[in-house]
C-alpha cells in the first residue's frame, strides 16, 4: 500500500491517468443512468398510453356487444362471455393481452361465470386497489401490476379496467391486462447497449488520455533524465526536439540552458587551467635563474672566510634565503600540481612504521637543536600499507617540523597504531596549541594563527596544506585537535589498502583526559 502510494506520488502519468479515469467513470455513469431512466420511462409510457386506448375500445366493444345481445330475449350470455374472454388471443401477434371478466358480486348469472380469465391467468392478479376504484367509479381506470398465471409465471404489465351493467345479469367488471415483455426486452437491450457503450467510451477516453499523457510526459521525463545526468557532470546530453509546439519549446529552452551551462563550465575550467598553467610555468621559469643564483651564492659562501665580516654575514644570509626561496618554489609547484589534479600516486606496499622512524631520525638533528625530546610509542612492529613513500615521508616530515616548531621545547609524542583497515600516526606537542576555531584553518595556504608572529624558520606556510592534500590523495585524512597552551595533536590516518575504509581511526585526535 505504501509502495503504491509512493509510486503514485512519484509518477505524474499515474496521477493524471487515474484522475481522468475517476472523472470519466463518474460522468459516464451519470449520463448513462439518466439516459436509461428517460428511455425506460418513455417506453413504458407509450405502452401505457396504447394499452389504455386499446383497452378502452376493447371494453367499449364488449359492452356494446353485451348490450346488443341483451336486446335479444334468447340471448346467450354464456357464449358471448366466453367469446369476449377468448378475444384476448385474437391479436396474438401482439401477445401479452389477457382479458378478465368478473361479476361484481361474485355470482354466476345467466351462464356467465362469476370469474373468467384468458390463458389461465389468475384473477387475483388484478390489483385490489384498481378493482375498488373501478367498482366505485364508472370511468375507465388503470394500474401497473403483475400478471400471475396458474403455472406460476409472473410478468410485469398493466391492467386497464371498467365496470358496466349487463341487462338481466348485473354489474360486471372487465379488465384487460397487457404485459411488458416486449418493452422489458427492449429496455434490457438498451441497458446492455448503454453498458457496452459506456465501457467502450471509457476505454477510448483512457486510451486517448494515455496517448496524450505519453506525448506530454515523455519529453518531461526525458528532460528530467537529462537534467539528472547534467547534475552528475555529463554535459553532452541534449533533448530531441521535434516540431514547434510547447513541448518543442521546452526542449529548445532546455537544450539552450544545458549548452550555456556547459559553456560556462568550460570557460571557468579553461580559466582555472590557464591560471594553474601560469603558476606552473612561472615556477618552472624561476628554476633556471634560481639555480644560477644558488650556485653563485654557494661559491660566494664558500669563499666567505676571505671577506670582511659584514660581507661574510651577507653571504650567509643570501644562501639561507635562497634555500628558503627554493623550498617555497618547490611547495608552490606541488600545490599547483594538486590544483591541476595532476598529482599522481605511486603506490607500493611499504612498512609505514619503518618510514616514520626514518623521518624521526632525519628530523632528530632539528629536534636536538631546539632541545625537543621525541617520544616514540607503538613502534617495533611492521605495519604494511599501500602508500607513496615520497608523499608519506613528506607528510610526516611536515607534521614533525610543525610540532617541533610549536613545541616551546617541550617533548613531542610520536605514536603509531593500526587496525585491520587503517594505520594512524599521531604527532602530539604540548606547546603553543591552537583554539578549536582554527583547527581546520591550519591547513589553509599561508595561514598564520597570529599574524603578528613571525614565520618560523624554514616554514613556507604551505607544508600542512600539502600534507593534507597528500593524505587525501591516499584516501586518508589528517585530523587536528588543539587547545591554547596545551599543545596540538595531528593524526594522519591512511587506509592499509588503497581505497579502503578509514572510518575507524586507530588513534583519536582528541586526547584522553589523563594525557592532557
Amino acid at each position: 500500500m505504501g509502495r503504491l502510494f509512493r509510486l503514485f506520488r512519484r509518477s505524474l502519468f499515474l496521477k493524471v491517468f487515474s484522475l481522468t479515469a475517476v472523472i470519466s467513470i463518474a460522468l459516464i455513469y451519470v449520463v448513462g443512468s439518466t439516459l436509461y431512466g428517460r428511455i425506460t420511462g418513455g417506453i413504458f409510457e407509450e405502452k401505457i398510453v396504447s394499452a389504455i386506448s386499446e383497452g378502452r375500445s376493447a371494453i367499449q366493444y364488449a359492452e356494446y356487444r353485451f348490450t346488443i345481445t341483451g336486446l335479444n330475449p334468447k340471448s346467450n350470455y354464456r357464449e358471448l362471455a366466453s367469446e369476449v374472454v377468448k378475444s384476448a388471443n385474437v391479436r396474438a401477434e401482439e401477445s401479452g393481452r389477457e382479458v378478465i371478466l368478473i361479476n361484481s358480486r361474485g355470482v354466476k348469472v345467466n351462464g356467465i361465470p362469476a370469474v373468467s380469465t384468458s390463458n389461465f391467468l389468475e384473477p387475483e392478479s388484478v390489483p385490489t386497489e384498481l378493482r375498488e376504484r373501478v367498482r366505485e367509479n364508472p370511468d375507465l381506470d388503470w394500474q401497473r401490476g403483475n400478471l400471475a398465471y396458474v403455472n406460476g409465471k409472473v410478468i410485469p404489465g398493466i391492467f386497464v379496467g371498467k365496470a358496466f351493467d349487463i341487462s338481466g345479469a348485473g354489474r360486471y367488471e372487465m379488465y384487460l391486462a397487457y404485459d411488458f415483455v416486449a418493452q422489458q426486452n427492449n429496455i434490457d437491450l438498451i441497458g446492455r447497449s448503454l453498458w457496452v457503450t459506456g465501457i467502450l467510451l471509457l476505454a477510448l477516453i483512457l486510451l486517448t488520455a494515455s496517448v496524450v499523457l505519453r506525448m506530454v510526459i515523455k519529453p518531461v521525463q526525458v528532460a528530467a533524465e537529462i537534467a539528472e545526468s547534467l547534475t552528475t557532470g555529463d554535459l553532452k546530453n541534449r533533448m530531441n526536439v521535434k516540431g514547434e509546439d510547447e513541448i518543442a519549446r521546452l526542449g529548445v529552452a532546455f537544450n539552450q540552458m544545458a549548452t550555456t551551462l556547459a559553456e560556462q563550465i568550460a570557460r571557468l575550467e579553461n580559466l582555472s587551467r590557464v591560471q594553474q598553467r601560469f603558476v606552473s610555468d612561472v615556477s618552472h621559469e624561476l628554476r633556471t635563474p634560481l639555480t644560477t643564483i644558488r650556485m653563485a651564492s654557494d661559491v660566494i659562501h664558500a669563499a666567505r672566510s676571505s671577506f670582511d665580516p659584514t660581507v661574510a654575514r651577507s653571504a650567509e644570509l643570501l644562501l639561507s634565503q635562497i634555500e628558503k626561496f627554493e623550498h617555497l618554489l618547490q611547495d608552490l609547484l606541488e600545490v599547483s600540481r594538486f590544483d591541476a589534479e595532476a598529482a599522481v600516486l605511486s603506490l607500493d606496499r611499504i612498512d609505514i612504521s619503518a618510514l616514520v622512524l626514518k623521518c624521526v631520525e632525519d628530523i632528530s638533528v632539528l629536534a636536538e637543536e631546539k632541545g625537543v625530546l621525541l617520544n616514540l610509542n607503538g613502534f617495533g612492529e611492521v605495519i604494511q600499507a599501500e602508500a607513496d613513500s615520497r608523499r608519506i615521508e613528506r607528510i610526516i616530515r611536515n607534521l614533525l617540523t610543525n610540532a617541533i616548531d610549536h613545541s616551546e621545547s617541550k617533548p613531542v609524542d610520536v605514536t603509531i597504531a593500526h587496525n585491520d583497515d587503517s594505520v594512524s600516526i599521531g604527532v602530539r606537542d604540548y606547546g603553543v596549541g591552537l583554539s578549536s576555531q582554527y583547527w581546520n584553518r591550519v591547513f589553509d595556504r599561508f595561514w598564520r594563527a597570529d599574524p603578528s608572529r613571525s614565520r618560523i624558520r624554514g616554514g613556507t606556510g604551505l607544508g600542512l596544506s600539502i600534507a593534507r592534500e597528500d593524505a587525501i590523495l591516499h584516501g586518508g585524512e589528517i585530523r587536528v585537535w588543539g587547545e591554547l597552551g596545551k599543545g596540538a595533536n595531528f593524526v594522519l590516518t591512511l587506509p592499509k589498502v588503497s581505497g579502503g575504509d578509514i572510518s575507524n581511526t586507530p588513534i583519536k585526535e582528541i586526547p584522553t583526559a589523563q594525557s592532557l
Partner: protein
Amino acid sequence: MTSIMVVDDDQDLAEMLGIVLNGVGMEVDLVSRGDEALEVFKNSQPDLVLLDIMLPGTDGIEVCREIRKHSTRVPIVMLTAKSDTHDIVKGLEAGADDYMVKPFKPSELVARIRTRLRRVTGDINGTLTIGDLAIDIVEHTVARGGKEIPLTRLEFDLLVALAKEPGRVFTREALLGEVWGYRHSTDTRLVNVHIQRLRAKIEHDPENPTIISTVRGVGYKAGGSGSRS
C-alpha cells in the same frame, strides 16, 4: 683531467656550472644548442654529459638518444626544470643515468658527477658469473657465451651491485644508495626504469626475468625466480 660536456641554452647557468666544476678540478665544454651537441660530443669525447631537457634545436631527450647510439659508456645526467614524472621517465628511457631537478645544490651536483665517474671495482677483482652471464670487473664487460653485451656504466654498476651478493634482496632504496649514491631515497623510479633497461639487454625473456628477479613489495635480487611475498 676530467672533462664534462654541459648542454644548456641558459648561458649564465652554463657559465656558472663551468665556474663550479672548474673549482673542483673538472674541465668543461659548453654547448648551447641541442643540434650541436652530438658534433661536440664526437670531437671532445667527454667523460660525462650534463644535459638540459628543454633545448633549442633538438630537445634534450633526443640528444640523449643520439649520444647513446654513439656511446653506451658515457654517463649522462639530465638537468631538468620539471620534476614531472613524464619528462623524467622519458629521459631515463632515452638512456640518461640520473637526473637533477633545478634548482640543485652545487655540492650535490658534484657528488652526483663523482658517483657516476667512479669505477665500482670495490674490493672485488676478476670475474663474477650470474646465470649464463660472465662479468669481467677489471675489463668492465659483460658477456654471454663469449659474446659481449654492451651496457652503460650505470647498467654495469647496477648488475655488479646485484651480482656481488646473489640471492640478497635489495630494496630500491638500497640500490639507490649503492649505485646512484643517494643518501636519501628520493625517487625509486630511477631504479625501476634502469632495471627494465638492463633486463631488456641481458634477459632471454624480459617479461619473465631469470637473472634479475622482482621480489614483490621489497625490491630486486640477482638470480632465482622471484619469490612472491
